[in-house]
């Protein structure tokens, strides 16, 4: 968001260019993600979990934050990616990067197939359909015990060293480096997508679904495309979890995971690219800090937080911050 006075002198193209330019704060953010290697070497497993969850939140941001599609079943793709990567390592080979790509492609197929269902619906029915498809997949994974291990989880996943060099160690050094690297690459892709003509079309869908056909846009085709992309990204996140923890639990498909990621994204600020990343970090660190309290009380605070965000902070942490900044710069 450039301020008006600064942009007035710009040519339209330079203005558009400015919107996608890297800000210093972004570079600082990404440099800061390297700090845990030196500052918190004992927390690298957590850092790796955060990077994976952030990637998951980013995938949801593409559909929820940009195209306005509320999903309560996004864990379906996360879980499908996790099982794909886990099963791939068991039955094909254990090289991680090819496994990651295989999982991404498989999840993409699932996403593409379900996008034909998703794009037909809006509002409550859409929420229900996403929820239903998510639960359906979880039940399917639960009953396919021979393949997934059912509620016992998928055992015997073993992953070869990354590039044949970096073994997955107990401290999570490789896990964090690997997850962070993948997160960064996918983020670059998402950032380009947001600043593309397609990204503009998605914002158009979010801002006014009714107007889109009147400017000749086929919103359903756009929604199918972004949903497939989002599924692939979620699948990559799930695959990372399977590879770095070398196991897959049925929980990866749970409703709680779907709900959690919505909470994180909204907490951070949807439709802001970094919102999901910030939200995931805050959420995961808070849960780690409060791990002493029983999970049911944890959800009390999550609930209270949601009520507060909706009533007091409609655009999440980043939205609140940018408002503060605007107010401050006006002085």
């Amino acid at each position, binding site marked *: 968001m450039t301020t008006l006075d600064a942009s007035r002198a710009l040519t339209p193209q330079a203005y558009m260019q400015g919107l996608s330019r890297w800000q210093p704060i972004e570079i600082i953010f990404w440099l800061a993600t390297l700090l845990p290697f030196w500052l918190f070497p004992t927390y690298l497993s957590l850092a790796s979990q955060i990077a994976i969850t952030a990637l998951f939140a980013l995938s949801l941001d593409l559909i929820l934050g940009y195209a306005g599609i509320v999903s*309560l079943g996004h864990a379906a793709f996360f879980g499908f990616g996790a099982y794909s990567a886990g099963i791939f390592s068991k039955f094909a080979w254990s090289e991680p990067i090819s496994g990651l790509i295989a999982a991404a492609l498989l999840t993409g197929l699932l996403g593409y197939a379900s996008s034909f269902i998703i794009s037909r619906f809006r509002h409550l*029915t859409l929420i229900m359909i996403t929820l239903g498809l998510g639960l359906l997949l979880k039940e399917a994974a639960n009953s396919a015990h021979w393949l997934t291990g059912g509620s016992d989880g998928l055992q015997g996943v073993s992953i070869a060293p990354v590039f044949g060099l970096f073994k997955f160690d107990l401290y999570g050094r490789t896990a964090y480096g690997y997850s962070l690297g993948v997160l960064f690459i996918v983020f670059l892709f998402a950032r380009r997508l947001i600043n593309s003509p397609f990204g503009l079309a998605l914002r158009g869908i979010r801002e006014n679904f009714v107007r889109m056909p009147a400017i000749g846009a086929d919103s359903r085709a756009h929604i199918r495309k972004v949903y497939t992309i989002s599924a692939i990204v979620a699948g990559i996140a799930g695959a990372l979890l399977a590879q770095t923890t070398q196991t897959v639990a049925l929980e990866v498909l749970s409703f709680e995971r779907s709900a959690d990621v919505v909470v994180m994204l909204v907490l951070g600020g949807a439709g802001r690219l970094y919102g999901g990343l910030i939200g995931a970090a805050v959420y995961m660190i808070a849960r780690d800090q409060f791990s002493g309290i029983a999970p049911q009380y944890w959800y009390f605070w999550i609930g209270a937080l949601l*009520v507060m965000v909706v009533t007091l902070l409609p655009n999440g942490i980043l939205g609140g911050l940018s408002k503060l900044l605007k107010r401050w710069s006006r002085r």
Partner: protein
Amino acid sequence: MLPPVFGVLFDGIAYGMLLFLLSVGMSVTLGLMNFVNLAHCAFAMFGAYVTVVLMKDFHWNFFATLPMAFAASALVSVVIERILYRRLYRATDLDQVLLTIGLAFMSVAIAAWFFGTTQQPIAVPSYMRGSIGFLGLNLGIYRLFLVAVGIAVTVLLVLTLEHTRFGAQVRAAVDNQRMARGIGIDVDRTFAITFALGSGLAGLGGALAIEIVGLDPQFALVYLVYVLIIVSVGGLGSIAGSFAAACLIGVSDIAGKYYVPQLGSFLIYLVMVAVLMWRPAGLFGRR
């Protein structure tokens, strides 16, 4: 002599009656205000805990607690409607989902705080236990009672809706809210009353459900899924739709668990997705 499939059908319908009581309120409020209330089953759970407390700590008779479960849920819901929901009628789906799921999460934690996470057993009167034989089937007495309550509530609701002034106002508001406001119907008041009534029925359903499905703090989330399925399968704002969908889902669930237990709840999700693919607005939905 009837084959055992009728027994499964009967159990399914009895279960469907419970689901109907739990979901009909949400269906009507959604049809009226387009408000997605994911905390609906928290009100049902509240009613159930009212029954538990009255029976355990005050030694009330089970039947005497039922009106209290209804009234308490209705009262609490209307307070929350006034304080929180009212501000969000024009908000986005997402905001409504977030606020109400937040409340549902809180209700789970609060219930766990007061009552622990264990199941709350209650003792229904002994004459409600057992079963009677009918053409070779064993029909549970409590389940017969549930079917009777379900049908009575349906008839009462339909009569209220079709033959009272208030019912006419509700129908007008569901049909076309702008026009209803135009002809001087106080839609907000109509909504508040409907909302309280719906939550009260959910509270009643919650109390009646304890004997069949038990009660623990997860109730607010587990049955939310069922309620959402029924509402979307039946179609928003339709009592007949909720009734049909509740029977369909109840029978599917019981039959699925009886005949193909390894599939778990797979069947009801499949039914839901199939129905919505066929009719996106639900069985009785118009929009």
